[in-house]
């Protein structure tokens, strides 16, 4: 039982890092534009399929590393296109962005179904990602097995979080993003090109999702609807974390990952999801603004 709990603590971290990768982009976009991007999951899917194409073309060893770049850039470009063609024109109408991005999600899913078929594809892993770290640990059934792929995802998520934090704190774009998040009109008055910042953030959010898609593909199949499975927990993470706070998003991802993983020690996956939802509902009853409360003019308005 102790081994099981230990394993589940690790799995909780792992699930948290995946949810975080899915939630970061969503949180950025929502924090800045108040746009709920229903097609966010489809950028994950796009990243997954780009990883599948990269590994099919280049082989697993080089493919996985190349796909990290290809998927994030590819998804970012797709995100920029979506922003320019659809989202930008609907910014003043939140309900319409909701519907338009949902429609877009359906279109992208069908496109993937037509291109790759409805059955999920597998991204082949290089040897260094498919084993466990420390075979001696994994040798007997009681020991703790740390899959290399999960360790890699954990490290990647931590790195992305760190880089994003530094970028928001210490770059001009980061400064502009924070300024627009806090007070759009004042930022515009001070000469910040709000539209360009929005474009950059939407592309950045999509790119992060694309990167997340590659990480998902290390654990499971890439299917046309893979994004749907991850976008709901991602929404939960964003809501639980409190809007407009990276730290809150990270903490919420961790909290939800651990709740659902530890619930699985005693119940099935389906029930564990139920437990997680109940937890979020109860938590929001007690703290409606989420884990971290951010004061912002945009929110006050």
């Amino acid at each position: 039982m102790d081994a099981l709990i230990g394993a589940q603590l690790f799995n909780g971290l792992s699930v948290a890092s995946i949810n975080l990768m899915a939630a970061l982009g969503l949180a950025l976009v929502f924090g800045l534009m108040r746009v709920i991007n229903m097609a966010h999951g489809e950028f994950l899917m796009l990243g997954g399929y780009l990883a599948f194409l990269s590994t099919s073309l280049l082989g697993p060893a080089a493919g996985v590393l190349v796909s990290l770049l290809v998927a994030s850039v590819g998804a970012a470009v797709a995100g920029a296109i979506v922003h320019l063609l659809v989202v930008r024109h609907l910014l003043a109408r939140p309900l319409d962005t909701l519907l338009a991005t949902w429609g877009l999600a359906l279109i992208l899913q069908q496109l993937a179904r037509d291109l790759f078929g409805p059955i999920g594809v597998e991204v082949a892993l290089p040897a260094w990602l498919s084993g466990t770290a420390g075979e001696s640990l994994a040798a007997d059934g009681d020991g703790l097995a740390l899959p290399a792929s999960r360790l890699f995802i954990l490290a990647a998520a931590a790195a992305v979080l760190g880089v994003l934090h530094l970028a928001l704190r210490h770059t001009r774009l980061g400064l502009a993003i924070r300024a627009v998040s806090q007070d759009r009109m004042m930022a515009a008055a001070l000469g910040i090109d709000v539209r360009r910042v929005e474009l950059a953030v939407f592309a950045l959010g999509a790119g992060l999702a694309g990167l997340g898609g590659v990480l998902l593909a290390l654990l499971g199949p890439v299917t046309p609807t893979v994004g749907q499975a991850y976008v709901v927990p991602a929404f939960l993470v964003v809501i639980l974390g409190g809007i407009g706070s990276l730290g809150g998003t990270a903490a919420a991802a961790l909290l939800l990952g651990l709740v659902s993983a530890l619930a699985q020690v005693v119940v099935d996956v389906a029930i564990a999801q139920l437990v997680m939802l109940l937890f979020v509902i109860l938590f929001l009853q007690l703290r409606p603004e989420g884990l971290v409360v951010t004061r912002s003019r945009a929110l006050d308005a």
Partner: protein
Amino acid sequence: MRFVAEGSARGPKAWRRLAAGLAALAALALAGCGERTAKDAAGATGPDDGATVAVGVLHSLSGTMAISEIAVRDATLLAIDEINAAGGVLGRKIRPVVEDGASDPAIFAQKAAKLIEQDQVRTVFGGWTSASRKAMLPVFERTGNLLWYPVQFEGNECSRNIMYSGAQPNQQILPALAWAREQGHRRFFLVGSDYVFPRTANLILRRHIEAAGLEVVGEAYVPLGGTDFSGVVSRIRASGADIVFNTVNGDSNVALFKQLSGAGLPPTKLPVMSFSIAEQEAQAMGPAVAAGSYAAWNYFQSLDTPENAAFIKAYRARHGEKATLSDPMAHGYLNVWAWKAAVEAAGSFEPDVVRKAAVGIESISSPLGTVRFAANQSLVQPAHVGRLRQDGQFEILWSSPGPIMPEPFDPLAFPGQSCNPG
């Protein structure tokens, strides 16, 4: 107040619109009737014109099940064309009416009724998921028509209006258990997708494992399409299982196998026996992910018989040299031949006469080998255990000594029930 005034002001206009709409609707209905009677007139000469006989082919051609079911439709149509080329049935050509069940049980029921009542088909070949079969069953019982069902299933059902050619649990799951026991496996972990087939299959497995004095060390379910097996894998590790019996459906298997391998338990170290991975699924997912795992079916493409070689050759001539064949396709194919044999034995297309004749036929030659239908309208057929190779084909490790009699109701899990369609 203002609202009411506005409404009444709009009144006459609205009425006019409504009247226009009704008129249009009536016109449409009339046109529809015209079309319908024209079709019926054609239909009247259709099924019984002495030249052709209409049969329904009802599979999902769209939606999530399409990838699996389109192949079964193709195998069914292959058999129909072969029979037509050889002169048809009772001197008539078979005229297939193909419909799309759209991966939706309600649409399956609706299309089954359409095929029987409008197209007046004499029998229907189709269905895949148990949900689609359960939805169609009342339609076939009400109309007295006959469905030929090609997929392995959980048993526990017995209708005189269905010919069950897919494996009953004792023709797939239990032979696999017997084989695993022979191999010295003692501690079983049962994992499945959360729906009727895995739940029922695992109930039957559990009863038989416990009756044999072996141990079920864990049982876990993941929602259909779920990809998070982290908890399941931890439980498998902690349970000390020496084999996993897997009824996970579809591409969730990619996640299961990947996460098992990631936790240091590839199929070479911890054997996995799957009941929902055939050649088609392995090919679509990428066979490498589950290579080395076991599967139990009544048919493998790698079966080395002249009948199977002919089947593969004929199918590939139409669908390309790389086309993959699998168990449900072979069943879909043999169902048409079995229907032909039964019609000829009965000398009639009448469904009720055909089904009675079908169970009296001594032997039907098929890609599976020689099979026949038992009195309970399920197929008497052999079972095999295979190991998935890197190329997506199965190496056959074990075959049942002979054909196995089908048992729709497992005596341990559902005692006291029997199936006598009469």
